[in-house]
């Protein structure tokens, strides 16, 4: 997947005078120690990484720190990156989410936030806003629509897990449902998303 070929307006920049490279090409350059390739990958993916981290942390200053940590980790681990493990942007976003959740959990521990407060803070799809949902391009519209089409209990379980970092046990406590029910809701939700996001495999 290349963000510049989709609905995101990321720039594909020339790296050291060579034609623009795809993510895999940039990763190879980064693994060889080319910092300009890192800059190019940053230009391409910093924005979605930032948006994701802001959503998790709800703190722009901290989000910027996480963005920097994420791409620094990309640099440090580029040589061990295994392309068979999935798309590069998937890897980058996974790193960013992990760092963001680490910070979120540390902050929640410091503040002694209750499970209720933590769960209530995650309300990404609580209200439908067609105008707002249309922002960010076609890919976002597809994903948001797929999420909104899920039964609320399935969507809520996935939302709490992905954006809130709540464990399945915590989600069960928060929703006052058995752990098995939460797992089932996640599984069913993921199955539906798999079908509804199929279009991304054809358009991206």
């Amino acid at each position: 997947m290349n963000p510049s070929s989709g609905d995101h307006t990321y720039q594909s920049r020339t790296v050291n005078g060579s034609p623009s490279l795809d993510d895999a090409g940039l990763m190879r350059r980064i693994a060889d120690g080319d910092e300009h390739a890192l800059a190019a990958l940053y230009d391409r993916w910093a924005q979605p990484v930032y948006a994701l981290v802001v959503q998790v942390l709800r703190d722009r200053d901290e989000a910027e720190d996480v963005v920097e940590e994420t791409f620094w980790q990309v640099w440090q681990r580029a040589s061990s990156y295994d392309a068979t493990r999935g798309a590069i942007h998937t890897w980058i976003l996974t790193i960013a989410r992990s760092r963001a959740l680490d910070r979120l959990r540390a902050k929640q521990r410091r503040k002694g936030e209750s499970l209720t407060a933590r769960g209530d803070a995650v309300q990404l799809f609580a209200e439908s806003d067609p105008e707002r949902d249309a922002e960010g391009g076609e890919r976002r519209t597809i994903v948001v629509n797929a999420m909104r089409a899920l039964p609320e209990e399935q969507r809520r379980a996935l939302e709490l897990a992905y954006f809130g970092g709540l464990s399945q046990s915590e989600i069960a406590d928060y929703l006052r449902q058995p752990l098995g029910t939460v797992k089932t809701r996640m599984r069913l939700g993921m199955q539906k998303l798999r079908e509804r996001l199929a279009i991304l495999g054809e358009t991206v």
Partner: protein
Amino acid sequence: MSDERETPRDDAIVPSPETPDLSKDKSNDMTPGMPGTPGHSSDAEGDSFAPYDLDGYVLGVSSDDDAAQVRAAADADPRIAEEIRVRQDIVAQFAFAVPPVQINRGRSAGIRSRLVSKAASAREGRVPVSRKTAELLRPLLRPRDTSRDAGRDGGSGASSGPSLGAPLDTTAAAQLNSVRRRYQVALAAFAVAMVMVMGLQQMRVAHAADGVRETLDARDQALSKRLDSLLAVSAHKDSLLASFTGPDMKVIDLVNYSSQGPLARMFWEQKAAEWTMYAYHLRQPKPGKTFQVWLVTTTAPAPISAGTFTPNPDGSFVMHAKYPLDRDALVKVAVSEEPAGGVPAPTGPIIIAGAGR
């Protein structure tokens, strides 16, 4: 089952190196894992994954026990490893559901710059330097004479010289190292000198501060004394005012009817036996003379001296005296000019006088 969870692992999604590399399947450029792609699993295949909590695992929210179970299964069965990758791609799409939030351009540029700087430093195995420092050093790291270098290189003359982060040839690298060493020594010497100058400056500042502190302390003490004095004066005036307006106050005017010059007013606070006289327009006593105040009473055979004084240059004077006297005993108050030091009985001319009844 443990309630503990782990942070989503970003490097252990597919633990088996034998897992087929779907991204290398050039026959289909669709997203791996999406339906219709090689990564897609049918419902029938999905059933075989049911014993494992793959979704909790890829979301990073499963318990440690469940996660370990999934990892072991993925190690044993490439299909499970593949399925994990497929679901990981689905989960990755969640990131695109967030509302677009623009990162501040200036700060983003700062992050980018720091990353490039750190990466360049890490590549060269040296301590990262700040951008400002790098900019300061940049002119010093350029070759001394590019035209001479060009001739030695075979006359190409097109070299723009090495710069930070650009590849260097051996000669340029040697020059760069030499310049860098010299500059480091100069920088260290400069730093030592700066530390010494700053230390001396700090001593001077500390010394000056001590002087200022002493001056302020002295001024503070002087002001405290002055304040005490003013408070005492104020208290005395308050006391006078209270007595002047009290019921036991007797006021006696002393005048000189022969001229319009001197006059005085005597306040006798009978209860406290205190006498206060305010005099104005008095001339100065003649050389060797002084003014003396006299109380003429019914109880004493001769006038009683209440003290001597010399007026201020403007002719005013305030005299205080304490002398007990019966309420009705005072007949007259007078001021006469007498020999310096005073006399037991009046001998000189009366300057001013007033009746006591």
